[in-house]
């Protein structure tokens, strides 16, 4: 599984210029062909913005529906299945539910506390949503579908994500509610704690791929071993560890269960969102899902080979379909985890970040450095390389895990067999 010996020809497949692969580009050119040349560039950009917004807006709508349905199924209920197509009796499993929710939240009264800082109270959801949409700009959605090619794309992604903390603070402070403010502080503590493992988790990828550009990172994961095992980073010991750390930190960064205690709708009122209602609340909700989708997209780009197919025999399926498939799988994982795990306590949360994830992520950086230094090892040395790398992942995991769960009696699960 030597990453260095990928023949360049292998990464350029016969399907890379197929009709399906270029379909979005054809569609775009066809739409803008009537425009004069100097305007075409602008309209092309606007068009890709519109496409991203509508695709991910729809994805957001249906992820909320899928989440409620899957949570329902996991709890042995059918989930929302009633909302018909408006003015008809056709229900289609309640597929119109997200739009009904949207109309409901749009028409709800927007209550702002009298003592609130009205401007900041309004700006908080807008800032949050704006920055979570900005993160979509650098993710490669397909072979020819990268909205913006940046030299430091990964850095851009996380810089844009850093502004979410600001929005959380603004929401908590502007509400003029001490519970909101306390919850915002707690949320900030969580976001800052998990920012560190999140950033450290992708450093190994940058180290091995040798680039901060998302397209180059995806290109570095091209190719297959024996035509079935793709060269994705998740299939290396350090990549698997990095992926796990990244996804755990992503769960916490996007306030998802089991790290959703900033919001904790069943225990607290709604944390820093206590004083938000109507469409502003919907904007927060939307930004949370956008953040989750964007982080999943980044995880796919960094660890799961981006838009690459898992095998050359499956390459006839266009790359953007592969991307969306992987995205759906990761979102399903988010929902599955939400349905399974109970919420953490605040002290458990921060201890988990600082005493477990951060050391593991640091060790993982060293592991990746070893991996890229031993690129030229061949023959039986390769097995040795794998063993060392795997040991550097598993050893600290077992040791730190034992320390983390020390003093906690082995639990007896009475109802889970």
């Amino acid at each position, binding site marked *: 599984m030597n990453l260095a010996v990928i023949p360049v020809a292998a990464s350029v497949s016969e399907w890379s210029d197929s009709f399906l692969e270029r379909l979005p580009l054809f569609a775009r050119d066809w739409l803008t062909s009537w425009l004069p040349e100097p305007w075409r560039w602008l309209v092309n950009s606007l068009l890709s913005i519109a496409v991203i917004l509508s695709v991910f807006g729809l994805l957001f709508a249906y992820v909320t529906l899928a989440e409620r349905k899957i949570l329902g199924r996991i709890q042995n209920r059918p989930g929302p299945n009633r909302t018909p197509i408006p003015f008809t009796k056709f229900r289609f499993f309640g597929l119109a539910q997200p739009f009904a929710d949207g109309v409901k939240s749009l028409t709800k009264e927007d209550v702002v506390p009298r003592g609130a800082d009205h401007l900041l109270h309004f700006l908080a959801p807008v800032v949050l949503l704006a920055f979570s949409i900005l993160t979509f700009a650098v993710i490669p959605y397909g072979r020819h579908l990268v909205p913006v090619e940046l030299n430091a794309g990964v*850095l*851009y992604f996380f*810089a844009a994500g850093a502004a979410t*903390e600001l929005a959380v603070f*603004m929401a908590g402070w502007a509400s003029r509610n001490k519970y909101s403010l306390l919850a915002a*502080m707690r949320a900030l503590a969580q976001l800052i704690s998990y920012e560190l493992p999140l950033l450290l988790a992708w450093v190994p990828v940058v180290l091995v791929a040798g680039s*901060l550009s998302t397209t180059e990172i995806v290109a570095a994961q091209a190719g297959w071993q024996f035509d079935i095992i793709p060269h994705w980073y998740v299939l290396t010991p350090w990549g698997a560890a990095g992926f796990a750390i990244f996804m755990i930190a992503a769960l916490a960064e996007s306030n998802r269960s089991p790290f959703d205690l900033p919001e904790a709708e069943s225990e607290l009122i709604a944390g820093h969102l206590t004083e938000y209602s109507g469409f502003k609340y919907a904007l927060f909700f939307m930004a949370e899902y956008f953040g989750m989708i964007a982080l999943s997209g980044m995880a796919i780009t960094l660890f799961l080979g981006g838009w690459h197919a898992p095998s050359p025999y499956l390459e006839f399926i266009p790359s953007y379909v592969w991307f969306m498939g992987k995205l759906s799988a990761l979102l399903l994982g988010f929902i599955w985890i939400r349905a399974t795990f109970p919420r953490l306590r605040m002290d458990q949360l921060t201890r988990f970040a600082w005493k477990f994830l951060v050391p593991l992520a640091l060790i993982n950086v060293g592991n990746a450095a070893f991996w890229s230094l031993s690129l030229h090892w061949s023959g039986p040395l390769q097995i040795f390389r794998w063993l060392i790398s795997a040991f550097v992942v598993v050893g600290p995991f077992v040791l730190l895990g034992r320390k983390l769960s020390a003093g906690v009696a082995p639990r007896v699960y009475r109802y889970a067999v």
Partner: protein
Amino acid sequence: MTAALVLIAVFTLATAAVALSLRNLIHSALLLIASWFGIAAFYLWAGAEFVAFAQVLVYVGAVSMVVLFAVLLTRRSRADTVIGPDSVARAISAVITGVAVFGVLGVAILKTSFGRLSPADVPPLPGGTGVSSVISAPTATVRDIGIQLMSTHAAALLIIGILLTVALLGAVVLAAQEGPESKHESP
């Protein structure tokens, strides 16, 4: 190009000026963050995207949080974030000093001939179209920056690492709550 620069400059200066004259500390801090965004936009405009993203990551992601936490930790009631007016004499003398410094710097800049550095004097590159966009247009890709960091500036990088560690420890020591035995000292 220049219009964009003027726009960025006006945005940055306006937010900074309003931030420093507001009485509400939280508003000041948030406006300063907007001003830092403006500076990041300037870096992007100048083609230093890595620095721009680092600026956003460090200032908007980290320093802003420290500032906001400091504002919240150093107040006794909510009204404390709105601070009283400062003395007028002080403000006037400060404005005079600031304007004087700006005047001196501005005159110096305008008087200086940047000679061969100005774009008109730079011969256009073969195949180049826009003059100002190709003048030297130094590129600093991430790879360049990484190589420089690890070779030419390796010592500086190590020293920065030590500095940051010391600053972290120092900040923790300074801000840490004192032990229970010193509790009676505080009024």
